């Protein structure tokens, strides 16, 4: 809240050159299988400013997740370049946080020790890591469940643990691949509200892949709409709402309706064209 977020009025020139946290430039990904070449992503370009929240929506198989893996360096582009803070991504990057749709927790570790895995892997000083873990547990409302094993936690709680783990090392960029996709509607809504607060508190750059147009419009500064066969960016919509957003109030705002309607039109058109 105290942090001056991307001014909504600024949205129009978000494409303007600046200190880009993530620069995706003309990236394409082709998989070569024995029978045929599959194009997962065709000529995608996207610049994300530091501290910006960008959501990516699109149908299954449009290359949304591929885009995140490119940024993380888990996948190499067939052509084009990806830069993180001006530095070209050539292999797995450790200066990011990653959250998957499934919490992907180690079932033999308690919630706290699952979060601490991040520190152990990075050999972070343990007292610093422990302090940060306690802060994150507080921030995400995991208090009281630190010692529970993953199978004792509900889906929403597991995803909170995964989020804490991704935030432990205070990554400048947080990549989220449908993090709330497997949760029930109410839990999802609750986590959306918390995500908005956590983003404002941590001031991290977020790239969120989601199936939910509402989730994208509620959380993001900009919504990237992708279409499939082959996956490509159809349009980037500026949301133009302040960073701090009340859930119900945001849903009722005309900007919200404009963004969601535009995204729906684009996605509907994409499906028709493909059929």
């Amino acid at each position: 809240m105290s942090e001056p977020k991307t001014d909504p009025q600024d949205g129009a020139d978000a494409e303007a050159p600046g200190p880009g946290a993530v620069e995706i430039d003309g990236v394409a990904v082709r998989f070569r299988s024995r029978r045929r070449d599959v194009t997962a992503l065709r000529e995608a370009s996207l610049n994300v400013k530091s501290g910006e929240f960008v959501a990516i929506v699109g149908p299954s198989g449009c290359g949304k997740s591929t885009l995140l893996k490119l940024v993380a360096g888990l996948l190499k582009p067939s052509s084009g370049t990806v830069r993180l803070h001006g530095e070209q991504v050539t292999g797995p990057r450790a200066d990011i946080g990653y959250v998957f749709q499934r919490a992907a927790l180690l079932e033999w570790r308690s919630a706290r020790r699952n979060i601490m895995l991040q520190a152990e892997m990075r050999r972070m000083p343990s007292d610093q890591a422990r302090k940060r873990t306690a802060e994150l547990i507080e921030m995400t409302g995991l208090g009281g469940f630190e010692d529970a094993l993953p199978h004792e936690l509900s889906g929403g709680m597991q995803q909170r643990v995964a989020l804490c783990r991704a935030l432990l090392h205070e990554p400048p960029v947080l990549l989220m691949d449908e993090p709330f996709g497997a949760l029930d509607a109410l839990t999802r809504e609750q986590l959306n509200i918390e995500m908005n607060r956590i983003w404002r508190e941590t001031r991290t750059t977020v790239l969120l892949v989601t199936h939910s147009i509402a989730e994208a419009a509620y959380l993001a500064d900009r919504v990237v709409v992708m279409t499939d066969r082959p996956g490509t960016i159809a349009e980037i919509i500026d949301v133009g709402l302040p960073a701090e957003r009340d859930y119900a109030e945001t849903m009722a705002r005309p900007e919200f309706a404009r963004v969601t309607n535009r995204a729906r039109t684009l996605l509907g058109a994409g499906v028709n064209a493909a059929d």
Partner: protein
Amino acid sequence: MVSHDTTTTASTPSDETGASGVVERDRPGAGERIRDGMERVWRPAALLLACLAAWWAITAFDLVEAYLVPSPGTTLNVLGDKWGYIWHHGWVTTYETLLGFVIAVLVGVAAAVLMVYSATVERTLYPILLFAQVIPKIAIAPLFVVWLGFGLGPKVVVAVLIAFFPVVISMVAGLKAVDPEMLELSATMGAGPMRTFAKIRMPASLPHLFSGLKVAVTLAVTGAVVGEFVGSNEGLGYVILQANGNLDTPMLFAGLLVMSAIGVVLFVAVELAEMLLLPWHASRRGGSVTTSF
């Protein structure tokens, strides 16, 4: 005390999934656990008793000549009278079994790790592994006696050969079953292959490994006894061969009983080790004491 335990647990479990998000598993009190245990044990115990009764009936009504099937009483008497003798040879077999099992686990786990991390090693080792598995151990055991003499060597080698395969197969399966997202996550944490192995892959593979270990430990007993059959002057295999030669069926039966007991005890020991080492896994399976009972 016990009844107090049960009532407290009985009164709490109503809030199954709190709005807070923790799925409350009912953790049974001591009384409940004992009742649960009885519930599980009585059926197999009854079956075992029925078998004993049938055995007794066959001998008591002279359905079979006494020199072919000794009565339970005679067998127990032999166990009691010749306890020192049986104990000595039983210990030899146990020792051979354990040594074979431990070597099989060490070699098997190492081979599995190499095979999972290198496709070349996997391609190279796999045919040999399969060959070692399909060749009948009883057929090659005499060869080991020729090579290694009448001592410990051939028994341990046969036990290793026979127990090795399930260890490798289960460990490879365990290491390959690791969630690929976990490995990607590990890469984004800047962890190298060693740390990924130590903190993610190895622990994740343990439940698979343990199911292989349970098979392996019972097979190791077979391996040791096969080794003894082929050439030895010690061990339960030797006891059984001697008894067989002398038509001493009570001693033969006593040997078989002790041999089975060794297998069961070792199996339960592996299960207990699994419960101690992987409590998270055991609790997920539903908290049963042993899968065998």
